[in-house]
Each structure stands twice: as C-alpha cells, then as structure tokens.
C-alpha cells in the first residue's frame, strides 16, 4: 500500500482539513488548561498526519511538534513550517527525557497499533509528561454500532477497535489520574428516528488523563458535564421519548375505548328510547283510533295500579280495622 493511497483515503473518509479543524474546537478547554497551567507548554502530537492538531496548537499559541511515519502527509506540515519528523512514535518517546512534554496527543493512531505497542506507548508517555501534563488519545468509538461493525473496518490499516473501558483501564493502570472520556465528532440529529438515534452515538471518543501534579484541581474543572453522546445516553433518550409517545397512545387508546363504549351505550339507549317512543306512539295511535280500546286499556291500567297498591302494608289504623273485621 503506497502512501499516496492512504493520503487520498484519509481525504475521503476522515474528512477535509477544515472539517477537522472545526471539530478540534471541542478540545479548546484542554488547550486552555495547558496554557493556564504552564508558562511555556510544549505539545507533542503522535501521528500528526496533515497537521490539524499542530495548526490548532499554533492558533492557540502553544509550541508543538508532530511525528508521523507517512512522509506524504508530512509534506503538508513541512510546507506549513511545522516542526515535524518522520519517526516511529514509540521509538521517539523512548528517546525523550522524562518530564519534558506538557501535552501528548494522538488522533486516530492507536487503532493502527497492536495492543502491546499502545500499552507501551501510554507507559512511555507517562514517563515523558511533566507533572500536571496531559495525555489525549482519540480513537473510533465502537459504541456507535455503525462504527463498531462497519466503519472501523473501512480503513484496512486498522487493527481492532479499542473500547473506551479498555483504554481507560490501561491509563488508570499506568498511573494517569482523573481520566475523562469524551465522546466526540458526533452529530446532533433529532431523536425521532431510529437511524438518527444510531448516528447520534458519537463516532469517536477520546480519553484524557493527567499525570499527578499541582494543577489537578484545575484539570478537574474541565469537561465537568462530559461531551457527546454515549450509546446509553442516546438509546435512553430514544426509549424515554417513545415511552412518552407510547403512554400518550395508550391513553388515547383507552380514551377511544371508553368513547366507543359510551357511544355504544348511547346508541343502544337511543335505539331503546326510540323503540320505546315508537311503541308508545304506535300504542297511542292505536288507542286514539279506537276509543273503546283506549277505554279498556285505561281500565286495565287502573286495575294494575290498584294491584300495585296491594303491596303497601296496612297503616296502624287499617291494622286495627283489620283486627275488628276478622274478630
């Protein structure tokens, strides 16, 4: 695989320099931290590629050095006047003095390394960083299922995705403090479609760690609320939203059910009333047509009325009379 291929590949899949520059804005708090905590901070970017991070440092008045193995990519950096070298990152770290660098970063590089090299790289970085110095590692976020199952493998030089839990653990293990996991480079589409939900999980993440030092409190204050969306965040939000929808629908269905029952009742009642009225009308009609039938009907009704009164018990006066009658 020649270098030119990879250069063009990067352009297509990682995005143009300006897009990336834009994305880097999210790291401004780190840069500010570094600037505020160190008089003359010095940044080292491993796998600096087209020099986006170097540009970002330069724009923020931090002197920085980049290293990369891809000469073709470095060409741009050289043209821009950056301090870059073609050298293996691990080998380079190894030859650096301890506590000589303020900020070590690496964007989308460790997924190209075997795990042992990553491990060693972090171990070396710890040694090289000044107390209060910061490490920043960005890599694809396999929580995003499109990234984890497909997009990660688009790049043939990727080895295997590194879950953020693993990277965090390694950093912990190797002495970094107060590490922070940031979900980055994501979009923020509305969460009403499943596709958007899947896409909303940040495609990359980065882990920040600090080497124990006097500035640790200041470091703690950045990214207090985290950034980006984890798989959990997004799916919970989706669930919540849909639970709400489902609740609304459930209520609506219940309401409609009640409404149907009520209407059914009313229809039945009105049919009943209608029939009753109709019957009343017909009877009335028949009776009006035939006074003799009407007279008979009234007489029958009177007797019925009288019969109903038989149920009423005797009053105390009637009881006395009853006793007299029967004596």
């Amino acid at each position, binding site marked *: 695989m020649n270098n030119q291929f990879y250069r063009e590949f990067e352009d297509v899949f990682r995005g143009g320099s300006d897009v990336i520059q834009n994305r880097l804005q999210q790291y401004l708090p780190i840069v500010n931290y570094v600037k505020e905590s160190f008089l003359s901070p010095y940044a080292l970017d491993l796998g600096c590629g087209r020099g986006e991070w170097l540009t970002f440092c330069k724009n923020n008045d931090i002197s920085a050095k980049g290293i990369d193995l891809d000469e073709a990519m470095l060409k741009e950096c050289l043209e821009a006047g950056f301090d870059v070298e073609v050298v293996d990152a691990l080998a380079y770290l190894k030859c650096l003095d301890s506590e000589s660098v303020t900020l070590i970063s690496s964007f989308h590089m460790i997924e190209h390394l075997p795990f042992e090299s990553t491990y060693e790289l972090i171990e070396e970085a710890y040694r090289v960083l000044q107390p209060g110095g910061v490490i920043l590692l960005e890599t694809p976020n396999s929580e995003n299922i499109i990234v984890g199952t497909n997009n990660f493998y688009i790049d043939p030089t990727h080895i295997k995705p590194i879950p953020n839990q693993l990277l965090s653990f390694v950093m912990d293990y190797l002495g970094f403090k107060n590490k922070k996991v940031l979900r980055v480079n994501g979009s923020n589409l509305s969460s009403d479609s499943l596709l958007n939900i899947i896409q909303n999980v940040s495609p990359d993440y980065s882990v920040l760690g600090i080497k124990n030092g006097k500035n640790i409190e200041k470091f703690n204050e950045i990214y207090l609320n985290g950034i980006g969306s984890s798989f959990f965040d997004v799916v919970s939000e989706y669930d919540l939203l849909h639970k709400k929808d489902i609740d609304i629908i459930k209520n609506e269905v219940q309401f409609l059910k009640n409404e149907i029952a009520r209407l059914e009742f009313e229809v039945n009642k009105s049919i009943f009333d209608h029939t009753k009225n109709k019957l009343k009308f017909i009877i009335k009609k028949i009776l009006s047509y035939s006074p003799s039938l009407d007279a008979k009907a009234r007489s029958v*009704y009177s007797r019925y009325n*009288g019969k109903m*009164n038989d149920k009423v018990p005797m009053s*105390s006066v009637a009881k006395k*009379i009853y006793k007299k*009658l029967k004596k």
Partner: protein
Amino acid sequence: MKFKVLVDLQSCQSPSRIRGIGRYSLDLFNGLIENENSNIDFHLLLNADFQSETLELMAIFEKKIGCSNVHTLNCGLHTPVLEGNDYLYEGAALIREEFIKNLDPDLFIITSFFEGIGDMALTSIPHIRGQVGVILYDLIPLLNQKEYLINPYVKKWYYKKIKSLQDDVDILFAISEASRLEAIAHLNIDESKIITISSAVSPVFQSDRARSAVSRERVPDADYILYTANLDPRKNLKGMFESFSLLKKKLKSSIKLVIVSQVDDTKMFEMVSLARRSGLIESDFILTGYISDEELVDLYSRCKLFVFPSLHEGFGLPCLEAMCCDAAVIGSNITSIPEVINFDEALFDPNDPNDIATSMFKALTDEFFYKRLKQNAKIQRTQFSWDKTCARVIKYIETLTPFGDSQVKRFNLSDDLLKRFKSASVNYNDFDYIKSAKLIELLYPKKEPNIFIDVTAIVEHDAKTGIQRVVRSIINNIPKNHRSKVKLIKLVGKGWYEYATEYYNNTIDKMDDVGVVTPLKGDIFLGLDLIADKAECAKKIYLEWRARGVNISIVVYDILPVLMPNFFHEGISHVFPEWLNMVTECADNVLCISGAVAEDYIKYKENKDSSVYRKLEQKIDYFHLGADFEQVERVFVESFNGLELSKTFLMVGTIEPRKGHLQVLDAFEEFLKYKTEYNLIIVGKAGWNSDELIKRLKYLNSKSGKIFWLNNVADDQLNILYQNSLALIAASYGEGFGLPLIEAAQYGLPIIARDLPVFKEVAGDNAYYFNSKISFKRLAEEILNWTDLYDSNEHIKSSGIEYISWENSANRLFSCAVRSCSH
C-alpha cells in the same frame, strides 16, 4: 239551609264515558251545577280507581263546585262483574254505601246505574236518609234478553240491578217519555216515582256554532244519506242496507249511503259484508270509522237526508243532533224516536225495508215534503235543551226539603257497618280482609286535617346541605296554629310513606304515629325535602293521593340542574329533570324559595313540551328563606392568618364551579397587580368537580400570602371574618336564594355581587353588582372601581338589606300551602 245533591259520575270514568251515556252524564251535571237555584249545593262523587279520569274530572269540577264538594272513593275490593265478583260485591258495596251515608246527601243521583260489567265501577243503592235518584236511559237488555243477557253473570247482575231499581230507588229520571212508559209497563213502577227529563245535544252540535274547517277526505261533496250506527242488532243496519238497495232501484239520480260507524276495523269488515249481502256494492256506501265531533257536525250539515231506522232507543240523540245541524230527518215510528222527530209523515216502520225505502224516496223526490222536513228540524231542535232537562231535575228537587246537619258524622268504623260487613264477608280470604281494612280506613274523615311534611332525605342522612338547613329551620319554626296538625313523614325505599316518628320526637314533640301514612281528603302534603332520586315512586304516590283529595305542595329550591347542567354532578343533572317533571305533573302548589326561582320555574314550564299531562290547576308561589341571627358580640380583629382584615375581601360558599371562584381568583390576581395591599379569603368546603381549583387554592395558600383558602371554619371564626373584612364577593352563577348576602348585611359587610335576579331580589339596591357575563379582567376593574368608591366612602352599603326571620318564612310557607286547598 241548602239542599245537598251528590252526583255519581262513574259513567264519565268507566268505558261508558266514550258512549252516549258518558256524554249525557257530563252534559247533565254541567247543566245542573249552572242552574240558578242557589239553594242547591252540588257534590260530585268519583271512583278513584279510575285514577286518570278522576284527575281529569277533578280538574274540570273542582273549579266549578269547589274542592270540598268533590269526593272520591276507591272501590278497590270490587272486581268486574264478568269475573264473577259475587262474594266481593256485597262487602265492597257496603263500604261504598258507608261513605255516601257519611256524606249525607239529601239526594243522591246515580247518572248510570248499569256500570261495572267489565271494569271497576261499582253502583249500588245506598241506604241513606235522603232520596236516591237514578237516570234511566232504557230497558233494552230487559226487553231484548236473547241478544243482551246471554252471559249468566251479566244476566244475574242485571236482574239484581232491576230489582234494586224497583225496590230501593226513590225517583227515576227517564231520558224520554218512551223510556218512562217502558219502565212503568215492565218494572211495575209507580208513575209518581218516575219523571221524564228528556235529553239534549252537546253544545258542539248547535248549528249556529261557527264550524271549524274539517277534513272532507272521508266523505267528498256529493248527495248522501246519513245514518249513525254500529253492529248492535237494534240499530237495524241490515234494514238500512236493504232499504237503500231498494231505493237505488227506484231512484234515477245517484246517491250514496254514509254510515257513521264508530267502531274498530274488524267490526267494519262485518259491516261491509252485511252491506254486500244486502245487495250493495262498494261504491254505494262509505263507512267513516271513528270521527271527531266536528267532523260529525260537518257530516250532519252536508247530508241530503238523515235516516234513523233504529228498532229501540232510549232517546235517539242522533236524530236531534242531525236536526240541530239543519238536516232533513226521517226515522222509526217506535220507542222514543217519534218523540224526537215529532212529525208523523217522517216516520216509518223500521221492520219493513219497503216502508223505509218509500219514505226515503218521498223525502228525496217530493220537494214540498223535503221542505217540511227541514222546517220540522228547525222547530224540534228548540224543544230540547240542557236548560230544559236540568230544570225538570231542579223542579223535582225543589219539591223536597233538606234534612239539615242533624246527623252526626262518623269518624270511625261503626258497629252497624261492622256487623253487616261480617255477614257479607263470610267467604273472604285474608287478602280480601286486608284490602277491605285499607278501604275502610279511607272512609272516615279526620276531625282536623293533617299537614304531612316530607323529611325523607334529612332523616336518612343530615348532610348539612343548604336544603337540609332550610328543612331543619322550617321544622323548628312551624306556626303554632298548625303545630298540632303537622306530621313528619319519609318516603321509604319500598314505595310508600311512613311516619318519621323518631325524627319528630327528636325535633318537635312526642308523636305516637308509626308505620304507613294514609292521608285523606283535605289533608295537605308538603314536599319540603328534596327527593330528586325518588321522583318516579313519588309521582305514583302523589297522583294517588291527589285523586283522593289530598293537596300536594312541593317546595322548589331552584331548577339550576336543568338550567345549567354543566355545573352539577352527573347524578343530579340526570335525575333532576325527572323530579321537576314530576313536580309539574303532581303539584297543586309549587312553592319556590324566591321570586327568581318562581320565574325560572314558570319559564321552564312554558317551554316544556306539552307531553306533560296535567289538567289540574297549578299555583306557583314563593316564600323567602329566613335568617335568624343570634346577637353576636362584636369582636374587632385586625388581622387573620397575617392578613390585614380591613383590606381583605371575603367569599363564602362551597368550592364548586357554579360558585364562580375561578373567575374571582383570576380577577383578583389581576387586581393585585394594581393594588398590592389587598387580600382575599375564601371560605368553603371542597365540593363537586373542584380538584383543579383546590390544587390552585392550596398552592396560593402556600405561596401567595395574599389569597387564602379556609376549608373548615368554625362559626365564631366566620363571624369574625364577616365582622372585620372589607367586603363580600358573591360571584355564583346561579342560586335559589342568597343567604350569604343576608349574613353579610347582618354584619354590615358591603357586598359585591353578580347581578343574578335572585341576588337583586334579596339585596335590592344595597349591593354593588357586576354584570353576569363579565370577563375576569373586567371583574378586576370592577373590584378596582369598588375600592376607589370605598376609599372615598361612596361605596354601596349593605345595611339596607331586609330579611325575614325563619318564623316568618315558615308562616309564609304554611299559609301558601294551606290557602290553596280552601275553595
């Protein structure tokens, strides 16, 4: 001393009422009571077992002769003759006779003696010290036994009746000379004991009456001969058809035969087949079926000739009706018909179809004869009138002398009746005895009428509602002169009223009455408690009582559930219309608690569809509720719950949508934007459909510091609020009365009220009114305006509001309820 005549009008109640007999009885009685002789006092006797007819007749005659002269009696023990009532008849008759004896008439007239074959009518001759008179129509069954006395029950009953006519009746009033002669000949009755009073047509048949346009669909304009007949053999329909068939052959011009056949369809088919057998074809004749009086008048007036070939009549009223409508009339030469037609040439032998046909032919072709027939009609119709007929009865009465009031009225079962009843009731079962005992109870009037007050709901459960407060207050303030008459009663679930003995003992005095309540004629029922859910049952009872002569008064607190159903619980808005319906049908007196409610009721009644059947008069009156204030010491309190009372408005009343709290809250919050120093205290229990409002009030309680809701306030606390607040806001959308306004006035608290008619009625010019349909923003402006007036001491003071005590309220209620029953 007045001569007392009691007239039995069962003939206007039994199925006879649709026949000639019913019409005759009604016209006669109407004529009698309109007579000039003021020394005769007419009383009416009805059979309350025919309930709807009783109420109809009461509606007509109570106005004319007074409630106290209308008497009703149940004959419930009796059964129709056709059902073999022998063993019950005598006992039932005894009970009835006892009642009549107690009424003690100088003359008792039975308008129709032969009643009760297929119904509950009971006619027997009572043994009274006055005379008994019977209207005699005819003796047709006696003289035509093969046709009319086939059923052995009927035959036995008829003979018994005839015997009674012969032995027990003092005077027979025959409706025609022919009937009188028949009676003398066949009943062996002394001539002095029977007089002819004759008959007359109903006013509707007077030809000079303007005739309403009636449908001529049944009988189109053409020459026709008219006869009014049914299938009764004596009506000689066969002879009519046969003679018409003969006439047709002789007559050159065409003419139709129209039969006014007031019978059902099946009988009409028989008539048609009879006509065919007599040689007629369909186009020859028309059978009208049932028709109205107006149509009949029209038919009489248009006919070419009226022919009356009847074989036996008591009077022959159709002949006279036809003559009253200027018809040319020819008829039979036997029984009463010659009396009515009174023109020998116009008579024929009804048994000879040829003779009938000849007469008809002559009438239709001999112009001179026809003119004389017309002339005769003009003369004859002046010979008969109800005035003349009634004058004959009156003349007879004037030969008698009244007994006067010497006879002692009975108030309970006499030994004499007991003895006779025992011998009459040997075959009675227990059930018959119970029925008899109940009927006997109704016989005797009480020395003093009772006032029965319905306290059903409050006895069941005193929920301390507004209505129950009224019920309690009225009961505690029964006027002294009525106190001994008052009985408290309750409607029990099974469908009758019982004495509320326990409640009476706890509220008024000791009362011995227990068990089922039996009000009698002259008693007063006062529906004080609202029993909206029992309307159907109550209606049955009240109608029965009314037919018995009990005066029904019902208190109407408001008709808001009908006017504004949205403001009421479904249960109430569902049952209330039925209750109100019951009131419109049953109440003689509708007693509203304010003029405004009376207005509402009158409007409601006007707009009601006419399906409600009540012919009896209904009086609508109102009484104001009372208010009794104990002298409460004035307590000056500056603040309450931290609110400065002199800047606090007050609302008092249950929290429910009708009371207008929501609007006042909205308005007050708006008002507070301009005048922050004011407060609002709302006093009232949470009522129906108030969840949202209560939530808001609770929130305001905890947050606003300006608006407070007090759920439960003791009387003394409420007094303090009334005494020290700034003003009362009465914002209800509908009320029956306005007690809070009066309470506020009592403490000199100014009032801001919605301009409901009832509030204006209660408070007059002594309250500040805002328009009923105002928005909350406008209401806020009104409150603002009021505070401005108040600040310059130009606000309207409430001290001028007048109110009455509960004692006066009760006095007024009782006088309304009692007044109406005296005629």
